[in-house]
């Protein structure tokens, strides 16, 4: 419990900054929505000039772009990208931070098992994401109801927003295993940015074809916004695969870390 609280305090600043940034990106997009929807027809004509493959790759869906939820779907690709970086950063620092700051000796010579240390740290990172998402969704709901031009389904709005949380969990798990496998990570950011953008582009490329199977290769494509808007639910197969990936990554990280030699600095 003490490790959990210590870690949560250590994350406090970054959690606040990320949460505010996410809300700011959302607010920025939503501030454009009233003007955007007013001139819908002209924008539509303009955007139709883009090749279809490009529109798909960047997630533009002209069919619903001018409703608030459709517009949100577009904004979400950027917001989730930021969220993924936050999660990957958190995951990667779980172990690498102790190595980099050379505090692993301090923590691991205390009367706790390595599993307890990992669990406390993982839970703290998880809690940081939960807090980010709760505050983000609350703020987003308020902002959205301010700028709406027509009624929209609150359930779908929240379902859309929560896709960020699930994608973050996947990146948290990726970051976790990377930090456990690497002997020493000098800096977290290049690793997390690299991984996140790599998956983002894989996702963008896979979106240009209609091959459903390719969606499994990028966490960003595990949630199909059109499907959510149509059925007000997530696709079970992707939820299951996502959960399995997370569990495997976390289990592997525990396994490796408990067997690992903690080297001298």
């Amino acid at each position, binding site marked *: 419990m*003490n490790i959990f609280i210590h870690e949560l305090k250590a994350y406090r600043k970054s959690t606040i900054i990320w949460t505010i940034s996410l809300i700011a990106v959302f607010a920025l997009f939503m501030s454009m929505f009233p003007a955007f929807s007013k001139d819908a027809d002209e924008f539509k004509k303009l955007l139709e000039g883009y090749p279809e493959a490009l529109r798909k790759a960047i997630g533009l869906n002209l069919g619903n772009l001018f409703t608030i939820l459709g517009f949100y779907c577009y904004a979400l690709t950027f917001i989730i990208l930021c969220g993924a970086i936050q999660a990957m950063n958190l995951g990667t620092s779980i172990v690498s931070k102790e190595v980099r700051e*050379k*505090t692993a*000796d*301090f923590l691991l010579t*205390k*009367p*706790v098992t390595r599993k307890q240390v990992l669990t406390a740290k993982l839970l703290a990172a998880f809690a940081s994401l939960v807090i980010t998402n709760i505050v983000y969704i609350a703020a987003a709901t308020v902002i959205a109801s301010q700028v709406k031009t027509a009624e929209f389904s609150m359930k779908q709005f929240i379902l859309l927003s929560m896709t960020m949380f699930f994608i973050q969990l996947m990146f948290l798990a990726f970051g976790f295993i990377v930090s456990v496998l690497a002997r020493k990570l000098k800096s977290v950011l290049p690793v997390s940015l690299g991984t996140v953008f790599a998956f983002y582009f894989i996702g963008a490329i896979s979106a240009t074809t209609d091959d459903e199977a390719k969606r499994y290769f990028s966490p960003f494509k595990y949630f199909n916004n059109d499907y959510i808007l149509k059925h007000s639910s997530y696709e079970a197969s992707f939820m299951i695969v996502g959960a399995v990936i997370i569990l495997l990554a976390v289990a592997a990280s525990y396994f490796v870390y408990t067997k690992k*030699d*903690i080297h001298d600095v």
Partner: protein
Amino acid sequence: MNVIEIKNLTKTYGKARGITDINFNVEEGEIFGFIGPNGAGKSTTIRTLLSLIYPTSGSATIFGKDCIKFAPEIKKEIGYLPSEVFYYDNMKVKDLLKYSASFYKKDCSKRIKELADIMDLDLNKKIDDLSLGNKKKVGIVQGLLHEPKLIILDEPTSGLDPLMQQKFFELLEEENKKGATILFSSHILSEVQRLCNRVAIIKEGKIVTVEKISTLKENNYKKFKVETKVPLDQNYFQIDGVSNLTGKGNVTSFLFRGDINAVLRKVAEIEITNLWIEEPDLEEIFLHYYEKEAK
């Protein structure tokens, strides 16, 4: 009773680093020196005891329990001070120590105050702002605040000024009197000589010898320095029991172990202007352990 028992402990990793077949015991209530040059395997041994690294073969027990299997339980009673101390930089000393204390199920706040007073440590500073010596003090307080039964020190004196070192040694002796067992690793012999009852010497990953300090220093070793009118033949004193023979101008010096009459007879045969017979310090006794065989 043995607090630490190390049996055939071996750890191989990387090239040429590691330890081979380490065996020694540390008895309850003693201050045990663990000495060897840098890179000899002191830290590797200690890190294995603390289950920071896992042995390739062999085992070690602390308080009679396997040091890997029962690591969390054992560590309740261990205080560890690493050679280089690093802590969460943006914390205050006070908060770091509180965090450290929170791992032990007892109230350590009084002890923290006492130790900070003895070591002259400002609790309200940020760790980031501390000098190396002051960080080391944080390490000392951190290692001792839960009044551990076993104190493991890995080159603890680097960065401490002589006055603080003195206070630190007094502190250790006090803890020892209260019943704490201490494993003290160092490459500085005089520290070990001053504090320890027994000592293990490690060299290139192997234990060379485990002996009582008193035995090592017992009168069988003498340091001779002979001054003569004319330079002596280099090999004049080359008899059984002589080591570290050096001649510099008119002064010849060497260590001697054995029947002292043999040397004195040799001395009597030559014209000398001065003669010193002294107790050697450990440094000189250990010198031959330190010199690499290859050289």
